[in-house]
């Protein structure tokens, strides 16, 4: 798309991607509010960015890593302490259909 065309926000599709169940009222309200925001954002299309490198980090550095030395992790009890449902030291979810 180009920035000059009105952004077409398909709220159902985007809410599905984001795994958010929205009520009809929320969909209508968000569509309107985000439409305003997107309309505002359209002015970014006016900026000439020819030849401009994107900034992913304000102060880019490279090769940040750690040596491969294993350290102790969490005990099972601590790891599962906040779990909504657990059994046999594992997290329980309703059956996942693959």
């Amino acid at each position, binding site marked *: 798309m180009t920035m000059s065309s009105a952004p077409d926000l398909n709220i159902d599709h985007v809410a599905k991607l984001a795994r958010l169940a929205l009520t009809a009222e929320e969909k209508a309200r968000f569509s309107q509010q985000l439409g305003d925001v997107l309309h505002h954002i359209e002015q970014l299309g006016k900026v000439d960015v020819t030849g401009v490198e994107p900034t992913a980090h304000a102060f880019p550095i490279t*090769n*940040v890593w750690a040596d*491969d030395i294993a350290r102790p992790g969490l005990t099972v009890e601590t*790891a599962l302490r906040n779990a909504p449902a657990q059994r046999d030291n594992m997290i329980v*979810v309703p059956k996942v259909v693959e």
Partner: protein
Amino acid sequence: MNYEAVIGLEVHIQIKTHSKVFTRVAAGYGQPANTLTDPVVLALPGTLPVMNKAALDAIIKAGLLLGCEIAPVCKWDRKNYFYPDSPKNYQISQYDQPICLGGSVEIELPGPARNVMGEHKRIPLTRIHLEEDVGKLNHFATESLVDYNRAGTPLMEIVSDPAMHSADEAFAYLTSLRATMIYGGISDCDMEKGQLRCDANISIRPVGETKLGTKVELKNLNSISFVRDGIAHEIKRQIAVLERGGTLVQETRDYDGQTGASQSLRSKEMAHDYRYFPDPDLMPVKVDEAWQERLRAECPELPFPKQRRFAESYQLPYTLTSVLVWDRTLADFFESTVKLVGPAKAQAVGNWITNDLLRELGAAHLEIAASKVSPAHIAALIGLFDAGSVLTNAAKEIFIEMFATGDLPGAIADRRGLRAAPTDAGELEQWCRDAIAANAKAVAEFKAGKDSAINAFKGPVMKAAKGKADPKRVDAALRQLLATM
């Protein structure tokens, strides 16, 4: 109509590291559920990833082994999708700037017979990138239980071009790729432990057509033979669909190695839109020439080049090289032994290793590293045999005992009385004279030019020697005496 299959493989290989790829809790297999986690693995609020240097070294090495171009700069991207085995609901991966580009895997197709080398070719690679593995779901009737031990294990994804045309080629590709990774110490590639996993993209087209047909992705090919069987099955299935006038649909199918059948996975509820974007929590990686050189120096000779060298340097037949080179430890064992006995004896070394040592290891379910027989043992045994101190059957017996006890062959020969008889030339000559004197008919035949007549004297000589005479020396002594008559 004749069809041609076009196959591309996506292979995931776990890299063998002590800790996970973006945090330092231990990586491993077979531990009790959820004992290999930390706040980062569980994606607890506030946690951040930190790269594992060893995982980077390993993937660069893999790239060098496969002749890839190593990108001077690569970065990390987030692949966003929701699934209970993915703690962050995004996977840190590499999207448009993978660390390795191009390269190829050398394969050998089945030859016309087992003992004849098959055709070699190179399957080009598209790319190799580094990402993180996910957790494991255990499915039950109404619930799934999640274990995050595997989550965050470093994982390489090796993508081939769609350049294979048969199940045999795919099988050969995986075999060679697996051996390469094991050789490089990059992964153990144990498919039962999920250290190597394979998905295949398969399509067919009429021979001569250049456009690709409708692609089917085949998943869950979790052993190398399943890969061959599954692909063969899928090619047949696709041909059958077209031949009865049907059309193929782009889909993902699940192959069941037990039943040998595949079924379509229900089309995902939502089309994938991974919303890749650069991970702001990680910095790019720059790989300079010095880093590459350091890793290149650690790269071992790969099986196929080794096989060619063994054939040329040691004059070994294909039947031996094809057995020796696929296990790096075995090949090293062979060369260590040859160093002790000299290249002229290489074939004997090869025979001892491929016949006797592998048979005994197989029977005892041992790896070569656990063998009590060392190159020095085999060298010593060959020495005894060449000196005539032990004979073939005795040597075989000695080998078995050597394998069981780790004792040196000389000691076993002495202990078990397996040495050839003391080779008193006078005594041997006397036995030969006696045998010749007792069989005038055979002497006449021999003199008349029937060379095999000499065998008639050998039985009595061996009997007199109680079986402990060296047949070669007996033969030589007999000929010498016969020549003077």
